[in-house]
């Protein structure tokens, strides 16, 4: 029964190639048919043409945003699943997305975005996330100890409360506002503001970098809190820090792209089945796979019924769910 592990660099190589292939495909397909030869000639000497605009102002930012958000949600999922030692926890379980959605819906219903401009939607999303993070933190820290199970239950309840409130807002909104709320909640990777794109990329890379410093702590925590203490981890400090990191990753993702479900649940799971539970490889792999997965789903969402677009959350759900069930039937110790 002795099995040797596949070397880590092979995984990283494989996932990087996958990311590259998916990005190139996503770059080359779309509503306006641009041949591969034309893409190359445009890159080389075709500035200020329409093709150049389509490629670099529409397709590329979308790929980059999908990359950042897919990576961020997957990292948040890895962190939370290790902390809670529960494979069903995902970034949206804790109600952070609910808080963001609630604030954004309020913003739309009260027509605040017409007064404060484009950035007001993501800003209110981030405010909503931070509000939920603070509520969760205050309610779950007792005598300096972050109660993990309490955190989970409170988070689920906050999710329910905010979705009820969103329904209330929707019920009293006008048709136009209702439409905007529904579309915002379904999520989209179309983002015209380059500042937000840069911010999201920064948050995503920071999230990966910071959580990677905690890779051994995550390994120890996934054995249990007492086990981690015995291995010399300052469990309370680590839990609080990781909770904030995962929350910020989720909050920013949701505020910028809406609720794109399933990435943070499915990717960590799938990657763990392939590379094992060592977070040194798990975090990098999850980041690369999450990014590839979301770019792929977004490409599908763009081309399936083109020129119309499907909500990307629909694709992540269907593709991810299908792959997930397939993987579960193949699992060793299932």
């Amino acid at each position, binding site marked *: 029964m002795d099995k040797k592990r596949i070397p880590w660099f092979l995984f990283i190589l494989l996932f990087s190639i996958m990311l590259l292939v998916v990005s190139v495909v996503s770059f080359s397909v779309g509503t306006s048919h641009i041949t591969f030869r034309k893409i190359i000639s445009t890159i080389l000497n075709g500035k200020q043409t329409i093709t150049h605009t389509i490629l670099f102002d529409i397709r590329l930012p979308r790929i980059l945003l999908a990359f950042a958000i897919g990576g961020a949600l997957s990292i948040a999922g890895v962190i939370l699943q290790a902390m809670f030692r529960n494979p069903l926890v995902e970034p949206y379980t804790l109600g952070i997305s609910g808080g963001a959605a609630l604030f954004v819906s309020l913003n739309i219903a009260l027509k605040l975005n017409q007064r404060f401009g484009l950035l007001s939607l993501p800003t209110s999303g981030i405010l909503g996330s931070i509000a939920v993070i603070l509520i969760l933190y205050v309610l779950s820290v007792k005598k300096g100890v972050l109660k993990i199970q309490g955190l989970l239950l409170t988070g689920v309840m906050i999710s329910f409360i905010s979705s009820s409130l969103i329904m209330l807002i929707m019920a009293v909104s006008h048709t136009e506002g209702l439409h905007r709320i529904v579309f915002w909640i379904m999520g989209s990777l179309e983002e015209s503001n380059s500042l937000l794109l840069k911010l999201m990329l920064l948050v995503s890379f920071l999230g990966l970098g910071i959580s990677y410093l905690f890779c051994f702590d995550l390994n120890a925590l996934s054995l249990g809190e007492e086990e981690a203490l015995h291995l*010399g981890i300052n469990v309370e400090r680590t839990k609080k820090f990781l909770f904030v990191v995962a929350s910020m990753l989720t909050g920013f993702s949701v505020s910028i792209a809406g609720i794109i479900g399933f990435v943070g649940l499915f990717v960590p799971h799938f990657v763990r089945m392939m590379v094992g539970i060592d977070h040194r490889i798990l975090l990098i792999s999850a980041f690369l796979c999450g990014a590839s997965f979301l770019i792929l789903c977004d490409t599908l969402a763009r081309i399936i019924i083109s020129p119309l677009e499907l909500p990307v959350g629909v694709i992540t759900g269907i593709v991810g769910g299908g792959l997930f069930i397939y993987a579960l039937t193949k699992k060793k110790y299932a």
Partner: protein
Amino acid sequence: MLEVKGLTCGYNKRFILKNINFKLKNHALLGIIGPNGSGKTTLLRAITKIIKPQKGKILFEGRDIWQMGFRELAQKMAFVPQAPLSYEVDMTVEEFVLLGRIPYHKVFQFLDTKYDKAVAKKAMALTHTLNIKDRFIPELSGGERQLVYLARALAQEPKLLLLDEPTAHLDIAHQIKILDLIKNLNNSFKLTVIIVLHDLNLASQYCNELILLNNGYLYKMGTPQEILTAEIIEHVYQTKVIVKEKFVSSRPYIFWDFHMEDLT
């Protein structure tokens, strides 16, 4: 090496341990015995900084453990839990033993050093688990898991090793194998050991010193000959027994039989 001073602690407001005082010398092999619920495991949890004392202090090499970082403490003491790993850990034995090197990792160190690997290999050699180093943890038997946990604790290169009923749920061959190993570590490597045991005869045979806990109080500390007498056991455990001297080791041996009253 270890000094417990006026330790009172418990969970919430309920005190499990009351005013415990004892000192432990270097290279001791101390057994903690006592009835269920007498506070044996709680004492280990207090020494390993899992629960905070309400009163009193625990000094390790003269320093209060609550003044030491978790990391520093984990370099000095290692803990082997009771019946470990009932859950799935999808790791090989070697990867698991290397977790014991976590307290030595630096902030920007992400790979195991050659020294880490050498220490892990030595720990596996000592615990006879080197031949299963590529097997996965969920495939192991209970006895093998206990040995792997012991190997991980040794990879921490501790001065003090704490074990919570390492022989629970093991057959007699594995019980003796584990306790022989611990005795050997104590003898040859001068490792100080604290071990919680339920089996009084194993405690008598292997430990140099015993602490008997009863209802959260330290009832008595001393050699097996001083602690394991018929009167003390009857008083603490409310059970009638006969104590004889063992033939080779001259340690006390405890008998129990039906109709004890007829014998005594």
